[in-house]
């Protein structure tokens, strides 16, 4: 199972095909898409519904704010430039009212300081346009889970265990020695076990880089990690989700 060196693409990701065995199905989420461009919004809402989520749509900032205030959503997907009220101000108004629903900001402005501005305004994640649907979906699912609030001192997937306090990783009875970065990579994957994690998410969260490294350096890191945790074991845990990214799951269950 060698990593496929391919650019993630939405066409491949929808529906997610099964190099990774169909998991216990991501629970249905209620999502609100605040986006003024008709076509983009239609595409997004349709795609989200196809993968089994409930998606509402608001065409401007005011409508989006009012929907987000009165309905209960798992994640908001907010375009930055909106008529009547821009995306950052919608999120700001919600946060001021104590509404902490996670928000993913979509923006054509992709540069680092725009991202920082977005996150400072109360956004939880930032995705530059144009994006692939697989990337968006992975981030939305991670955001929905994060809202549930789960920071544990140890993670366990199948017989693989990671102890965040002692920095020890074991699989079965075997201790696995990891480099610090490999440890953080595994930690991030295990924290989101059962969820797709994209290469960009890994680059952002494990390395704290927000640029495009041209070549898929992440794949090589993941295959190194895979060699350490899966090699010699009958049951692979670290899976490649074609066209999207990676996922750690216990396939035996």
């Amino acid at each position, binding site marked *: 199972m060698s990593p496929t060196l*391919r*650019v993630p*693409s*939405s*066409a*491949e990701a929808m529906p997610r095909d099964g190099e990774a065995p169909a998991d216990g199905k991501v629970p249905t989420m209620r999502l609100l898409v605040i986006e003024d461009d008709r076509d983009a919004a239609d595409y997004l809402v349709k795609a989200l519904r196809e993968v089994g989520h409930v998606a509402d749509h608001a065409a401007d900032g005011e409508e989006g704010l009012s929907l987000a205030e009165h309905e209960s959503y798992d994640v908001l997907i907010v375009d930055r430039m909106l008529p009547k009220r821009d995306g950052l101000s919608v999120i700001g108004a919600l946060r001021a009212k104590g509404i902490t629903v996670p928000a993913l900001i979509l923006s054509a402005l*992709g*540069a*680092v*300081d725009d991202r*920082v501005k977005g996150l400072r305004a109360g956004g939880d994640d930032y995705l530059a346009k*144009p994006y*692939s649907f697989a990337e968006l979906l992975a981030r939305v699912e991670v955001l929905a889970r994060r809202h549930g609030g789960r920071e544990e001192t140890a993670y366990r997937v199948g017989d693989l265990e990671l102890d965040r306090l002692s920095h020890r990783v074991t699989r079965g009875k075997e201790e696995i020695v990891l480099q610090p*970065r490999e440890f953080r990579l595994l930690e991030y994957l295990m924290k989101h076990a059962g969820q797709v994690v994209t290469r960009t998410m890994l680059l952002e969260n494990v*390395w704290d*880089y*927000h*640029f*495009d*490294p*041209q*070549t898929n*350096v992440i794949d*090589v*890191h993941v295959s*190194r990690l895979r060699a350490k945790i899966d090699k010699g074991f009958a049951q692979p845990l670290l899976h490649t989700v074609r066209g999207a990214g990676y996922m750690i799951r216990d396939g035996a269950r």
Partner: protein
Amino acid sequence: MTALAKLLRTTAFRLTLVYLLVVALFAAFLLGYFALNTRRLMNEQIVRTVDSELAELTGQYEAAGLRRLVYIVESRANQPGSSLYLVTTPNGAGLAGNVASLETGVIERTGWVETSYRRLEEPDGGEHRALVRVTALPGGFRLLVGRDLAEREHLFRIVATAGRWSVFIVVVLGIAGGVFVSRRVLRRIDAMTDKARVIMAGDLSGRLPVGGSGDELDRLAASLNTMLERIETLLRGLKEVTDNVAHDLKTPLTRLRNRSEAALRNAASPADYRHALETTIEESDALIRTFDALLMIARAESGEPRAGMAPADAAAIARDVGELYEPLAEEQGLALTVAADAPAPIVANRELISQALANLIDNAIKYAAVPARPSGAPAGAPVAAEQPEQPPADVTVSAAVVGDRVEIAVADRGPGIAPADRGRVLDRFVRLEQSRSQPGSGLGLSLASAIARLHGGELRLEDNAPGLRVVLSLPRAASA
């Protein structure tokens, strides 16, 4: 008329008027003060001499009687001069003196009074003004001593005339000066305005005239010229980007379009369509990447991301990025080593420096994987590890303090770049012929170069003998 109206509206002219008013008021005050003081002084002098003369005459009268007094008064009155004398009987009839007539009631009251009078020696002469003192002598006689005020009046007139003249001269000179200065300033400002209009009309290469005297107008013109230069540079950059976008984005877009058309025309099965769509997405992703790199370069060159700069350690950045690429290098059969142990303090946008370095390392790995050949013939993509007879090609990433610079360097053992081509590869989109087979937008080096310039540094290409050494040279910060 409009020229005059324009002149009157200039700041220079208005300032001149204000100064004029101030100077005129000051001159008037000075002259008035002078005149009043002189008058007071002269009055005091008159009072003193009259007092002493009166005392002396009274003494003569008391000592020698009326006859003596009349005699002395007569003799003094006959002398030419401005003195006035009059001795009268208790009922007011004149006994001696040079006064023909007085204002009524003057002689009846003792003390100081200013009055008009006529002189005896000029019976039909005009009236004069005088300051006189009347005193009552024992026995009811009255003695008047005074001084004519012609001298004082004369002086006063001189001062008044001088005042009028000086105000006149100040006003004339002031207005003339104001007009002169305003016209000079106006002419230069008109020249600047005209030039500015030309520039506004689209000739951005135009510059405002600078007189060379280094005055405030020159300094203003020089600042505006610097601003224009900056704008011109930015616009030229924008135009270059536009040209490049037109040239290098349209080519892949055309390819994309052709392929889609071909798929519509020829595809026989869903698998064919699927393949066509996948290729389309891959190509559009590559396009987006090129586009992002272009935007990034434009932003870096506009100086916009300078706000996000903070003290950073170049050695730590080199270690982090080196670590990110190390497995990739290994996979390509290259040994990537990082030599960055001592701290190398810089003030930088960590993200941008990391991105620049990532581009350089990515390039180095790509080219180092192509074994150096004396012929320089383009190679496919053989991995060095598959050719054990060759020494392993290395990529070395280093960061060190060199004098007042911090140099982050990426050295490879690839084919290198001929000295003649080194300047050219920093331009956007330039990819040397032997690299055409490699993937990439060709923007990596230009992006790194733009990031270096943004940080006040530069990108240098050196011979690594064999291979290429790319140095990102940045100003060293004070401390880590």
